[in-house]
């Protein structure tokens, strides 16, 4: 099945990339944009049909590698739809 992991910086960890994007968007004429944060999205193919089990395994992957829990938090989305 397909899974998506979203890795974002914890609140309170400053995000120079997000700030720069927000700044650039303002300069490009998008004043309505407020706070901007940039994170990662990791899409995985998992050879495993048991959703609960897959979630545990992916959680393990996140803690072991995909996220640096000192500064990052993560979210797991299972059976994600195909990107357009």
């Amino acid at each position, binding site marked *: 099945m397909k899974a998506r992991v979203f890795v974002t910086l914890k609140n*309170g960890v400053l995000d*120079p*990339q997000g700030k*720069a994007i927000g700044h650039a968007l303002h300069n490009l004429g998008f004043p309505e944009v407020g706070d901007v944060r940039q994170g990662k999205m990791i899409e995985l193919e998992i050879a495993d049909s048991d959703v609960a089990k897959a979630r545990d395994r992916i959680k393990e992957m996140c803690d*072991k*590698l995909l996220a*640096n829990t*000192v*500064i990052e938090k993560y979210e797991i989305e299972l059976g994600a739809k195909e990107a357009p």
Partner: protein
Amino acid sequence: MKSAVIVFPASNCDRDAAVALERITGTRPVMVWHGDDALPDVDLVVLPGGFAHGDYLRCGAMAARSPIMRDVKAKADSGLAVLGICNGFQVLAEAGMLPGALMRNADLKYVCRPVALEVNETQSAFTRKYDKGQRVTFPVAHGEGNYFADDATLDRLEGEDRVVFRYAQGDNPNGSARNIAGILNQKRNVLGLMPHPERVCDPLLGGTDGRAMFESLIEALS
């Protein structure tokens, strides 16, 4: 003094570190492949600069999980001196051997230039041949050297005198917290720093400010 340099896939300052070590210690370090599980019997382990695993996902993330790192951790816990330079510092932070994290430079650009540093700590095996407050110039060459840790951790680092190098006021190339350029672990046997001491050990290359670090190690470890 016997030393080893770990070679990760796409380390690229491994030779530079080896050359500096040999020039100053007189003995050629052992080059250890990241896939090995055991370190040879040495007094010092250097994690060199570079782009281990392409810096993909996060700098040092994959290298920190290399087989060899288990033994590096274990031996460090029992007192082995470990020096992480640039990418090596990132690996040590990712491996949890040093607190905090190294984030993208504040201006989002890779930067390579000589920077002025202040030596803050001169008791450790790495810096005893420097004077407290001494100004030295090392080059930096990184895109993610922006040291981050929560305030409690930063206070603790400062309180325990573990901030070994600071960027001189106004010469912080990456926006790191409290101008931190290099820190020690609690046991004071593991040092990670972003600037490159091994690139300033030869007068022809614009300075010799890095020599004292290796001379300190010789004095402390042999």
